[in-house]
């Protein structure tokens, strides 16, 4: 009798203790929120782009305020797979104005910046552990880098030429040479140029410059053309654009764009402060149209002329479009749409208590998402933050 009782008690004990919590390193990587603090009162870092490295860690490209320059300096940071700070580099002040995309080409991480004296575009190379930073000038007369995106082993780079007052789109090879380029006027007069310069010295509005290529098709850039912030399509051969989706001076236009096919795009547009998400929009790359006519899902919760990031992702085996933006309540809003139909699936809001602003959202190797942004500790100190979201937390995507 006693033996039987003991056996029952032992079995029950083993059963119940098998269901308790234990330290689990897997959970540490699946989801976390990390804020990268610095105890210097005047430190001001802000993220620009982020990639996940092969070791599961994260490499963050950021900017930093410089005491001796109106331009922003370069800041690089490495976090491990749990999001913990590993290393940072403040790149020499003689290189400024870093831009996205932080691209992985030829086993190195690359991005563009510029020389503050010559204003010429430079290419920066580093590695996954930030053990070295190499900077070299990009061939050709390219100034003021605005945006870049990888196209195969090349970069599609949008720059601004202050000498000729032109937006320049160029294809830059992995070795840093310009293989093709084409320039388009922004219009005559200093007033057209003023907001562009203010963008670079961060005293004015930050414009959603973009550059890229429709898969196997035309190149495009989202920037200033003919007095207007427009989406311009070009084959880099003809002097005139093949197609233009016009904005309204700098009060309307695209705030983000992601080509899905030759004519189908996922986009977002702004119009006098209002924001519209267009998860399934057909654009004519060889014609002229206006972004105002495109309609879209209006989201009054977003801050005026909100920054928008769009990526494609496969979450819980479903192909989705992930829109990331900033809300009026100072949260980061993520909006998920069916890639095939543009149907809204779900949303998720990140951050509370202190303000949060998005810089980039990426997919991670475990099928989740990572969002990089800025938060303000104690409501005042801007610090880079990294929020990892596990796919299982994204309910509503089946």
């Amino acid at each position, binding site marked *: 009798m006693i033996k039987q009782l003991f056996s029952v008690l032992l079995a029950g004990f083993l059963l119940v203790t098998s269901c*308790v919590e234990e330290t689990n390193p897997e959970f540490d990587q699946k989801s976390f929120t990390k804020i990268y603090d610095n105890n210097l009162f005047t430190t001001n870092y802000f993220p620009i782009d982020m990639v996940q490295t092969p070791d599961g860690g994260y490499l963050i490209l950021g900017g930093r305020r410089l005491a001796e320059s109106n331009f922003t300096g370069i800041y690089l940071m490495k976090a491990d797979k749990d999001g913990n700070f590993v290393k940072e580099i403040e790149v020499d002040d003689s290189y400024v104005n870093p831009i996205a995309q932080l691209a992985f080409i030829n086993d190195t991480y690359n991005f563009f910046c510029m020389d503050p004296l010559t204003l010429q575009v430079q290419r920066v190379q580093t590695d996954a552990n930030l053990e070295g930073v190499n900077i070299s000038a990009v061939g050709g007369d390219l100034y003021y880098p605005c945006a870049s995106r990888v196209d195969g082993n090349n970069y599609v780079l949008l720059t601004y030429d202050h000498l000729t007052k032109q937006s320049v789109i160029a294809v830059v090879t992995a070795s840093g040479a310009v293989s093709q380029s084409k320039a388009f006027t922004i219009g005559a007069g200093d007033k057209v140029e003023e907001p562009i310069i203010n963008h670079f010295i961060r005293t004015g509005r930050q414009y959603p410059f973009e550059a890229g290529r429709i898969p196997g098709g035309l190149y495009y850039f989202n920037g200033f053309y003919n007095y207007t912030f427009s989406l311009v399509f070009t084959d880099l051969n003809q002097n005139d654009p093949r197609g233009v989706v016009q904005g309204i001076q700098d009060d309307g236009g695209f705030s983000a764009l992601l080509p899905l096919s030759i004519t189908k795009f996922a986009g977002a547009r702004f119009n006098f402060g209002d924001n519209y998400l267009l998860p399934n929009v057909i654009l004519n790359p060889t014609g002229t149209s206006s972004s105002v006519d495109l309609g879209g899902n209006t989201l009054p919760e977003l801050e005026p002329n909100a920054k928008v990031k769009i990526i494609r992702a496969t979450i819980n085996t479903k192909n989705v479009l992930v829109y990331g933006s900033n809300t009026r309540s100072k949260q980061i809003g993520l909006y998920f749409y069916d890639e095939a139909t543009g149907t809204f699936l779900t949303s998720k809001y990140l951050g509370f208590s202190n303000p949060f602003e998005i810089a980039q959202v990426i997919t991670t190797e475990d099928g989740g998402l990572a969002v990089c942004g800025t938060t303000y500790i104690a409501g005042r100190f801007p610090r880079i933050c990294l929020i990892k979201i596990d796919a299982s937390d994204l309910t509503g995507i089946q």
Partner: protein
Amino acid sequence: MKKLYSLSLLLLMAALAFGQPPKKKTPQAYNSRATNAPGGNFLDKQWWLGLKAGVNLSDVSVEKRYSALSPGNYPASQTDKAYDNFNAIGSQVTLEVSFYYKGFSFSLQPAYRHSLFTYSNNYEWSDPENASNRLELTYDNEQKVDHAEIPLIFKYDIIGNRLRPYVQVGVYYGFLINANKSVEVSGIDYASGGTNKFINDPVIIGAKDLFAQNHWGLLGGIGANYNLGNVRLNLDIQYRKGMSLINSTENRFGSDRLSGIGEAMDDIKLNNLAFSFGCLFPMRYLASGFKTLDQR
């Protein structure tokens, strides 16, 4: 919780007033082999039922430290939480069912336990070039956790008399019922033109998702029963050693309100020092002349 205390008090008073009414039946009616005579075996064993309530103090064993803040230019250890052990008073109510046999007792004591523990973080931002550019912040955190617990306890009565001290060891299993968390941010801002001391309204949130659904632990303690008529007054002191984590490892960053201010729970085990007072009633009735003092 107040209702539970009131209920406990009522039950205790009712038991004292009406417990063990005179019986006409002899002990043999319940146990034909037993005899109440000296040397008989009826008083060798007994079932006891009672209710206890009291206060408890908690301390925390940190298994692994976590923080949502990851510093770049100062040691990560500066973000460690400073736990205030045994300084916040919780409470518990326990129903006790014990089987006594020749000085040994096997006891089942399901309980509702309300535990509190607190910790704080201190941060400072300064400017080497301007002493007035300085901010000090203190985050005071208070956790309130409610568990239903089922302990199995073995007791041994050291001596048998009107006052019967005992020692006890056991194991318990706890189920999470509810949890709340309060974070109060206070500080001194030297950058606003003076010494600006401030205390913000606390952030109070339901934190059930941040805690483990189940946990278990070991317990040991001492106590004493005082035989008063047919009932026993009981004073019980237990130290409960948590053997599994009480936090949720999966939902550590599950609250945006907390992670947004840099707060994330460590992997912790909860230990608890509990003081209870209660009353026990015998379940095996004897003749009207029976006194618990007769128990062997």
